[in-house]
């Protein structure tokens, strides 16, 4: 199959994300990369758990004193919903509905940006309470873990926007379909990591 071939609704293949050899490679390669990312985040989680609440003096805030449930809940809702919107985008890609796909992708990016905004707001709050990157081992570990995730979200945003910008005039073909698909995998993976962050860092931090 030629990658630049023009398709119609009828001829669009069922698995456009895996229709060519390049696409298959991309698909498997990205999953493997996610396997590696799992170990990366696990190492960061491990470090965080080992250094949780390790502060040089008792006057400094612990996890319990810092975190606020409503903020985390709002961030969680944003990211969860963005996961659903990117599922919708993939649904429309399958049906060769380019405009709709772009719409849902745009929504995904918007939700992601909202999440990032909340996270930045949250971090500035903590800094005011004396919990900074350099104030304690706990601080370093917290910002590194959550910041790594935030960095992934930011990179995902850039990626999403680049994809949308580059392909806005072109429409769907077998060259860019796997790209959109792989992006959606990435975005779901970010959500997976976040599920563990809000559970292990925030909720377990609040419980003590």
């Amino acid at each position, binding site marked *: 199959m030629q990658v630049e071939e023009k398709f119609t609704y009828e001829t669009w293949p069922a698995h456009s994300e895996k229709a060519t050899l390049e696409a298959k490679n991309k698909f498997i390669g990205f999953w493997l990369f996610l396997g590696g990312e799992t170990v990366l985040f696990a190492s960061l989680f491990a470090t965080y758990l080992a250094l949780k609440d390790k502060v040089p003096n008792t006057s400094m805030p612990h996890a319990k004193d810092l975190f606020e449930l409503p903020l985390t809940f709002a961030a969680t809702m944003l990211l969860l919903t963005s996961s659903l919107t990117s599922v919708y985008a993939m649904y429309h890609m399958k049906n060769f509905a380019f405009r709709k796909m772009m719409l849902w992708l745009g929504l995904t990016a918007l939700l992601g940006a909202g999440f990032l905004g909340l996270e930045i707001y949250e971090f500035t709050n903590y800094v005011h309470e004396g919990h900074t990157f350099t104030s304690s*081992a706990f601080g370093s570990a917290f910002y590194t873990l959550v910041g790594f995730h935030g960095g992934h979200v930011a990179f995902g945003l850039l990626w999403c926007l680049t994809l949308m910008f580059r392909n806005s005039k072109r429409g769907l073909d077998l060259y860019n379909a796997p790209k959109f698909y792989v992006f959606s995998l990435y975005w779901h993976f970010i959500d997976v990591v976040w599920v563990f962050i809000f559970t292990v860092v925030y909720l377990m931090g609040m419980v003590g």
Partner: protein
Amino acid sequence: MSTYAQKKGFGATLWDFLTTVDHKKIAILYLIAGGFFFVVGGLEAMFIRIQLAVPNNDFVSAGLYNEIMTMHGTTMIFLAAMPLVFAFMNAVMPLQIGARDVAFPFVNALGFWLFFFGGVFLNLSWFLGGAPDAGWTSYASLAIASKGHGVDFYVLGLQISGIGTLIGGINFLVTIINMRAPGMTYMRMPLFTWSTFVTSALILFAFPPLTVGLVLMMFDRLFGANFFEVTMGGNTVIWEHLFWIFGHPEVYILILPAFGIFSETFAIFSRKRLFGYSSMVFALVLIGFLGFMVWAHHMFTTGLGPVANAIFAVATMAIGVPTGIKIFNWLFTMWGGSVKFTTPMLYAVSFIPSFVAGGVTGVMLASAAADYQYHDTYFVVAHFHYVIVGGVVLAILAGTHLYWPKMFGTMLNETMGKITFTLFLIGFHLTFFIQHFLGLWGMPRRVFTYLPGQGFETANMVSTVGAFFMAVGVIVLLINIIVTSARNVRVGNDPWGDGRTLEWAIPSPPPFYNFKQLPLVRGLDAYWLEKMEGKMAMTPAEPIGDIHMPNASFLPFTIALGLFIAAFGAMYHVDHKPWALPVMVIGLLVTFASMFLRSVKDDHGFHIHKEDLIEKTDKGVEA
């Protein structure tokens, strides 16, 4: 090397190599760069041995010795052994499975340039105020306390080259999963391909912990974090764990490809299929799996407690079983065979006793209570040099001789090869055997000197003499390479005459598209099967058609270059140099701009047309 290549000037050739995405050319780049760093690391080793030849020597100062010792370990592991292994993987593995290239040719080139710039960055430390001096393990308390920028060079250099290795690993995995020729099932893959597969999986899971460890140390040293700052609540043992979660699989990342090369060598020069193929594959996978369960045996004396020590001791011993299986399978591959002692075979044969010696001391070290005596002494130094030199380096030397004709189309001189072998093997045992005893007699490792009167003098002198044998052996190899390249006698498809796997079925060096028609694989040792039926070539699995090839690109180079530049900015940012931050930003911009360019500019590659392929066959230019 390609059929399309005309006689070109130096500039054009250079540009060709800077932009190539061809796995065979990238293999040559890995071979050259890895070979260069191997010589650098070897020189460092010679300085170490000269310094230790006599007690209270002052050939190098204490501080400089620590830098040399650190760089010797780091260079040999990250910049010599791994890239050399990668060279063979790149050169041979796609051919062995009948693929036209790796899955991501662009990423393959990017991996090389990241490794290369990381290595160059690390070695620039010699000229920019001193190399890292905290040992290749760079334990946190000492590494954090280390003054100057040495450890920063270590952290940033390894980070850059580590990313290169990681994406290289993913690339090989996808290639093997997706791009095997028709009929090439998993259980028909040559053992070198299997070892590439398992090794790449280990890379995929082992490098992220290293990345995290390096990030933490970078944050601590450059950006004021407190992961390892005990007074701020930090903990240095975290580094030890992260490093060894990576570090132990790393040992297998090096040794498994060596097993692969030797498996091929034994089969080829015994003219016999590998004994117990399935159990060999099983053993490979098992070693890879166990490799992740044993890292804390490097930390027996850290004080993890008896429960942890006991568990990790027993788990470590378990690795002896699959390794033993492999040794006996190799022996029985030769049993009943028709063994020809070529240079690669000599390395393979001498590998068995050398590696067994290293392996059994490994089991001795696994016995935790006894390890309290061995730990951090010359016994350990002897052990890992027996495994790494007696395993990995011998394999690299064997592979160099074995695959040289496939990579360059000309054979290394056998006589000189055998001279190298003899000198190197004698030197190796002379250098390291005695070090077992030095350790047991009470000599700690990583000492820049020792006091007279402790009984260490003679043994150290013997060890130094041995090192010179090895050095001369390597020099002979270099001369061999120069002479061979100058003579440039061309060879055919199967220069050893006993090739068994697909890479020997096509010309040496192969055309840049590898296989004109993908071969049909009918069993293990596909080419051997055809030869036994009297055919001289593989049966094609497809009609001649257009071949899709990737375009060359300069972007891998610039992506890596950007990170290289940014690393300088990050490092000098702690000195409050006004230019540091701009340099970092510029570097990152170069990287991200290149990545952006890559994603917005479509790269559909090009096609070699069917007519061109047929035409050439008719003229008899390429088979």
